[in-house]
């Protein structure tokens, strides 16, 4: 049996809730983009519509979810009042995946905007960009699953 010191200051709960909710929404929107990309790859005749769906999902869903997750993370850390020399591996993994992820999210947003503009008249014109965005989404999904592992098991 394990005795868990589940003592957490009440002020941490709300920012932690925003952080976890944002991370869950982020995983969901990235999975939607990834599914659309893979389905489009497997059925080229449907790739046009799937690409527009994936690009829209990324533009509408991923950025708000990312911001919620990231702001929630920073707010949670500030409420935790960790000592200055507190630098565990799990926190580092969280920061690395979130901040490098931000760069890829930004690139994906730019590619999605361009792809959606190109596909306005002909839905097949955004397929190549949608595939790049889809691959980025799947890579981010894998990285964030590692982050979930680090956040829950807190390796030293």
């Amino acid at each position, binding site marked *: *049996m*394990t*005795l*868990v010191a*589940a003592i957490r200051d009440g002020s941490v*709960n709300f920012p*932690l*809730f925003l952080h*976890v*909710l944002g*991370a*869950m*929404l982020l*995983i*969901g*929107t990235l*999975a*939607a983009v990834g*599914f*659309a990309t893979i*389905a489009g790859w497997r*059925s080229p005749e*449907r790739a046009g*519509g*799937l690409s*527009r*769906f994936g690009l*829209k*999902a990324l533009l*509408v*869903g991923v950025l708000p*979810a990312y911001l919620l997750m990231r702001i929630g993370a920073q707010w949670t850390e500030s409420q935790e009042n960790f000592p200055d020399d507190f630098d565990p591996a799990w926190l580092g993994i969280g920061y690395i995946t979130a901040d490098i992820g931000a760069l890829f999210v930004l690139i994906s947003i730019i590619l999605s905007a361009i792809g959606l503009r190109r596909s306005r008249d002909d839905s097949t014109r955004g397929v190549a960009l949608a595939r790049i965005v889809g691959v980025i989404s799947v890579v981010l999904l894998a990285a964030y*699953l590692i982050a*979930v*592992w680090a*956040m*829950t*098991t807190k*390796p030293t």
Partner: protein
Amino acid sequence: MDLYDWLLFLHVLSAFLAVGAMTALWGLILGTRSEGLLDPPTAMSYGRFFGIVVGVGMMGAIIFGIWLAIHVDGYELWDGWILASLVLWAIAGWAGGQAGRAFEADPVAGRAKGIRFHAITSIGLLLILILMIWKPGA
């Protein structure tokens, strides 16, 4: 990693799968609202895939959650916040099943009903998340 770490990771991962897939299904509902981005067979296979993921996530969350409650000193299955979570889980699971049946039976005529049940599932999972973080009475 000891048993507690594994159980907690698998419990949280399952919750992420359930809520993540739920979010992806909202994407499908919004994406098929007017523009017709997805043709019916694609929308159906998308819906089935993420519907199954919601089910797998919910099953994993409850199995590993109950295991955790038994394994961890200080938590009991009859704690108020855990009991409330179990009731909400049952309601969310029932509503999710109803939503899936409504969309499967007739994606057009059953859409409003499916969305209502999907909303009940989503609210149920959101309330469970709130209980898991605040743990009132723990």
